[in-house]
Structure formats: C-alpha cells, structure tokens
C-alpha cells in the first residue's frame, strides 16, 4: 500500500490551534499521525546580524513557556564565545539556583494546572470536571499546594532576575547581581515545606497511576531510545554535564558524549508536511533513531539523583514502572520526582554563602562559536551560535526539546488513535485522548498552554491519499464543532 504524501499547508490551521491529521489505510488502521507545529519558525533567521551579547535576552522571546531555559542556555553558549570555560563558583550557583527554580515552577504548573485534573478525575470524565477549578473545589489542599510551589519557584526567579518572567540575570561570562540575605531569608523559611509538598505529590502521582494502572501503562505506549544530560558520575544533571543516550532496552549507547559535538550525535530530518524538524540519532538512522527527551528520559537514564528524597523516589519509580519506563503518562510521575529534586537542590543552594558573593563575572579570549546545552523542563535544549569578526551572529541553530520529542508525539498520538479510534468517525472522546497524549510531553506549543479540555485542537481524519473522512475542532472556549 503506497502512502501518498499530501502537503497540508500548516498556515491554513486555525490560529493558535493544535492540528493533528490521522491517516488511515484501506483497512481502517491508523498508519500515521501528524502533529502540525508552526512555532519557532523564523527565529534563527531573525537573530542573524544581532550583537551576540543580546542573545540571552532576545531568545527569551522565543518561547513564552520556558524563557528562563532559553536565557540560561544561550548564556552558556555565549560564555564560550567570550572565552569563559568556567564561571566563578558564585555565578554558577546562582545560575543553577535559577534553573532549579524554573524547572520547579514549570513542573508544578504542568502537574497541578494542566495535568492534575486529568489525573485526578480520570481521562474519560466530563471535561467540566477536568479543570483546575474543579480541582480546587474537590481537592482544595492539592490545588493550593500546587499554586504555592509554583509561586515559590517564580519568586526565586524574580529575586535573581528582577522579574518573574523575562528577567535579566545571566550575562556573558557570569551573572549581573548577587542575592542579598533579605532576599534569601523567606525562601529559607519555606523550602522545607515545599520539599514536603513535592514529596507528597510524588506519592500522589504514584497513587493516581496505581488507581488506573493498566490504562496508565498501556495508553499510547511506544518504545524509544532516550537522551539527556548526566553528570560526571552518571547522576541526574539539569544544568551542566554531558550527553547520555540509552536504547529502548536501557543499554547505554553513548555516555559522557561532549555537548559541543552534538552535530555528530544527532541529525535533523525535514518532512514536507511539517515546519518542525525531526531529529534522530545518527548511529541509528532516521527511521529507528528518533528518541525522547524530558523528565521520563532523564529519570530513565541517570544512575542516581544526587539528593536523597528524590533518589528514593526514583528507585521506587523504577521498581514500579521498570527500567526504562516507556509509557507516556509516566512522564507526569517522573516530572514530580524532578520537582522534588529541584526543591531539595534549592534548599542546599540557599544555605550557600556564595549566593551573596560579588565575584560574578569572568572574561577570556573571544571565540567565534558557542554551543550551549541544558536540560530544560521539557528536555534537552541546544543553542548553537557562530559570530563574525564584527560580533554579529551569523548562524544560529536551536533544537528545542519539543522538536526532539516531535516523532515521539506523533507516534504516541498514532498509538492512541489505534487504541481508541472506532471506525471512520472522530469523537470528542478521541479528541480528549489526543490532547492527553500531547500533554504528557508538556510540549512548548501555544495550544498546550490552555487548561485541560480547553486545548484548541483540530483533528482531521484522512485516507492515505489525502481524502478527508472526518474532522472535529475544539475551540478555545471548549466547544466542539465538526
């Protein structure tokens, strides 16, 4: 059966909507799912000609969802351009603190606001019930904790960078200001409580998985290699470190792979129907080589977590879910283990007097190229820049985590559709499940920032030759039209 490639103009999508095309063959089996993504277009071109030192600030506009990750990873790349191979210890600690705070608040937002209604009330329950307001009504203590954990992270970001979002902190070779004892004090007071709440949430994730174990473990189940950073000793590492890749069985394919050699590790494929590229591991080729990044990848591939309570949680997770765990819904649990780790790591850093030091900037000999890699909340994030003799950016290559998960999201949706599509008619239930599948990856797409059941999403069902069979659209107000 030949698959006709139809070019669907991604521009024709409803503004701000996610769009998914399901292709079915003559036997009525879903053979492909295509998530159409238009985000991130043009940015690499846009920053050409700009002064390199502006990059950590300008890239924050790239994504409204994790601006801090872009800020920090661009700063890492620019450190190399200004010839700084090692930051001062205080600058490094401030950057790490900022990063932990960002991951914590992002994970809390995702779990409590975007995912917990699904997890708490079940994926099949009515949409009205699957929203944060319903959570607040029925489980006020959970919702309040979620809000407070997030706020804790945001306030740390504000203390360091001057603003909750789009602040200004990392500069080439360091940081622009230290913290003060007055700024740190309130966080020291609250951090133990935050750690406890994160730990409770890890337990809650487990319970929720357990309540509906088969569904959770089978839903959209696909298997893939995983990629992420690890520290020198194989520990979970979010800010620095080198790359590790494991295959679907958990065997290590690459370890301590130097970040600046990433172009050898992964390549990117372009498909006619998508603006977003499809990265793959060079050693496995474009068909087999797609991989996943993000919380599940990181928990799967690290040898241990360097903070005690998160490490205990990781071990329990492995016992329960296997190693490596593949079910997309386990991303949620893994996400909360990381949140716990971030909270613990924040507590350690807050006790460190280096946060008050003004020894914050280093300099070196100018280079023409810089490559920054970081573990953003959603996974490995690459920023690669080259500049000319006049300090202008000539080349930028950014691989965002959502791009790395591109094929995985498509495959997960395909699997969900195979599991749940009945005949040739799209149903609101299937639309919801597609949303749940996309959301598991917490993609940085504007459609995914809407609350549960409100993700504006267009679902198209087509034959492989491109004939339309059915179509269903959910709008931002939640109403569904055919």
């Amino acid at each position: 059966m030949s698959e006709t490639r139809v070019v669907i103009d991604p521009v024709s999508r409803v503004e701000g909507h996610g769009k998914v095309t399901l292709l079915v063959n003559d036997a009525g089996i879903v053979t492909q799912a295509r998530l159409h993504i238009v985000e991130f277009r043009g940015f690499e071109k846009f920053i050409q000609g700009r002064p390199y030192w502006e990059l950590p600030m300008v890239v924050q506009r790239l994504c409204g969802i994790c601006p801090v990750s872009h800020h920090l990873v661009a700063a890492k790349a620019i450190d190399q351009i200004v010839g700084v191979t090692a930051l001062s210890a205080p600058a490094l600690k401030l950057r790490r603190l900022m990063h932990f705070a960002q991951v914590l608040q992002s994970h809390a937002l995702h779990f409590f606001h975007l995912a917990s209604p699904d997890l708490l009330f079940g994926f099949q329950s009515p949409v009205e019930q699957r929203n944060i307001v319903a959570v607040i009504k029925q489980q006020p203590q959970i919702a309040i904790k979620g809000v407070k954990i997030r706020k804790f992270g945001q306030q740390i970001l504000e203390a360091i960078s001057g603003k909750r979002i789009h602040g200004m902190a990392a500069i080439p070779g360091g940081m622009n200001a230290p913290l003060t004892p007055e700024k740190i004090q309130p966080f020291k007071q609250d951090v133990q409580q935050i750690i406890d709440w994160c730990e409770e949430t890890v337990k809650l994730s487990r319970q929720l998985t357990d309540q509906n174990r088969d569904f959770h473990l089978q839903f959209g189940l696909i298997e893939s290699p995983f990629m992420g950073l690890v520290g020198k000793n194989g520990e979970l590492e979010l800010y620095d470190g080198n790359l590790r890749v494991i295959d679907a069985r958990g065997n290590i394919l690459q370890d301590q792979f130097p970040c600046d050699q990433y172009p050898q590790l992964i390549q990117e494929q372009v498909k006619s129907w998508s603006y977003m590229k499809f990265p793959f591991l060079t050693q496995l080729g474009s068909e087999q080589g797609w991989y996943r990044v993000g919380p599940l990848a990181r928990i799967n591939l690290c040898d241990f977590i360097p903070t005690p309570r998160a490490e205990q949680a990781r071990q329990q997770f492995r016992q329960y879910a296997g190693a490596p765990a593949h079910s997309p819904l386990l991303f949620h649990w893994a996400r909360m283990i990381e949140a716990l780790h971030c909270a613990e790591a924040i507590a350690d850093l807050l006790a460190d007097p280096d946060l008050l030091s003004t020894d914050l900037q280093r300099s070196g000999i100018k280079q023409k190229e810089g490559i920054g890699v970081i573990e953003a909340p959603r996974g490995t994030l690459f920023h690669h820049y080259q500049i000319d003799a006049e300090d202008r950016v000539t080349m930028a290559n950014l691989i965002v985590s959502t791009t790395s998960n591109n094929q995985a999201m498509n495959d997960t949706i395909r699997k969900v559709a195979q599991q749940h599509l009945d005949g040739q008619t799209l149903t609101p239930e299937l639309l919801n499940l597609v949303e749940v599948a996309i959301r598991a990856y917490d993609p940085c797409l504007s459609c995914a920032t809407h609350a549960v059941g409100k993700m504006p999403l267009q679902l198209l069902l087509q034959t492989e030759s491109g004939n339309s069979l059915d179509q269903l659209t959910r709008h931002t107000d939640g109403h569904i039209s055919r």
Partner: protein
Amino acid sequence: MTDTLQFFIDQQAVPFQPGQTLMQAAQAAGLYIPHLCFHDGLTPHGSCRVCIVEINGSIRAACTTPATANLQVHSETSALRTQRRQLIELLFAEGNHLCPSCEVSGNCQLQALAYDLGMTHYEFVPLDPHRQNDGSHPDLFIEQDRCIFCELCTRSAQQQDHKNVFGIGGRGADTYLFAQADSSRLADTAITAQDHAAHICPVGCILPKQGSYQIPIGQRVYDEQPIHLRGNHRPDEQDATP
C-alpha cells in the same frame, strides 16, 4: 538691578537669562519639557519635535525658541501630549524596537517617554527596517535600526570631541546613520569608547561592546521614576546635566 526676566509655562513663572531658549530656562528651573534631540551643551537641533509647546495658538519647538519676557507657554495640554505621543509612536514604527530584549531597556529615553506619554501600542504601519549593523569598531557597536536620527552623536562628536564621526544620510523612510569614513565603517573613524559621542545616544543605537545588561532590573535609570521627574539621563553619562 533690573527685575528678573521671566515667562510662564502652564501659568508657572520661569526665570531666564537673555539668550536662553525656553528649554534651557525650563530645565534650569527644574521644569520638564519632553525632549529627545536636545542636550545642554550642544547646539539645538529642533528635529525630533517632541518638545513642542503652544504659544499664542502656534506650535513651536521649545529647544529652538528663545525665551522672551512674559511669554505664555502651554506645555502639558492634552492636545500637546497626544501629539507628542504620536511622534513617539512614529519613531517606534520607523525603527525596529523590541524593548523587552533591548539592552538599554529601562535606561532608554525613547522608551521612557513612551511610558510617560501613555503609549500602549501604535497604529502606524511599521517600516520594519533591516539595515546592516556595524560591529567593526573594537569597543562600539551600531544597532542601526534603533536610530531615531536625533543627531546628538553627530553634534557631540563635532562639538565636544572635535571629530567627524557620524552623519545622517538618505531621506524619509530611507534615512540612515553612517560613519564618516570612506569605508563607512565606524572602525575607520577616530571615535573611541571614551569620547562624549560614545555616551550620548538616547536610545540603544550606539552600544558599548562590554558591559551590557549589567544593571539589574530595579536599578536602571527609569525603574523608579518616570522621565518627567528623572529627566533625560543615561546610566554612564559624563556630565550630569539633565
């Protein structure tokens, strides 16, 4: 001893010395008239028109109009505020201004005036220019698309540094800032990072290559006070005249 010479801005008496402009006298008296291309110590230029005031029903630039005794000058009228705001909006539309990532954000006089005059957006069609930036100088960088053609740099280089460094070429939408060298590259002019002209740009066009984004949010020139209270300042200015 003659009586003190004075005129009135919005009914408030402003003393002046013969030869002073309305702007100079107002500034000496601590009264703020919005402006961009005026700088005490440089010959007035009268080009940005942000300093417009109303005298006997006609609109004049305060920076070029000589003060005369008992003149009744209107400055803070809603009509003038609107016109000034529209001028600022035009400047935004003519350049390429993405304040949130701009390194002079919080220290920028154009941005500060936009806030002060209540600009929330603009409806002029953006020209969206893409001129080539000049990074040839070892210490200075020219971000062409943020230039508002106030010629403070041109005048400062000539009058304070006694050098020919900058010029404005083209007209209308094609106006551009250029370096006065055969190559048109800043590196081939005599400017140094210590020159007055390197520290006078009211926006983010002439930039130092070192030290960007060093001032944390909260400590920038316009973080605490709006420009009508703070005056036109840069964080690095060499003379503190407002």
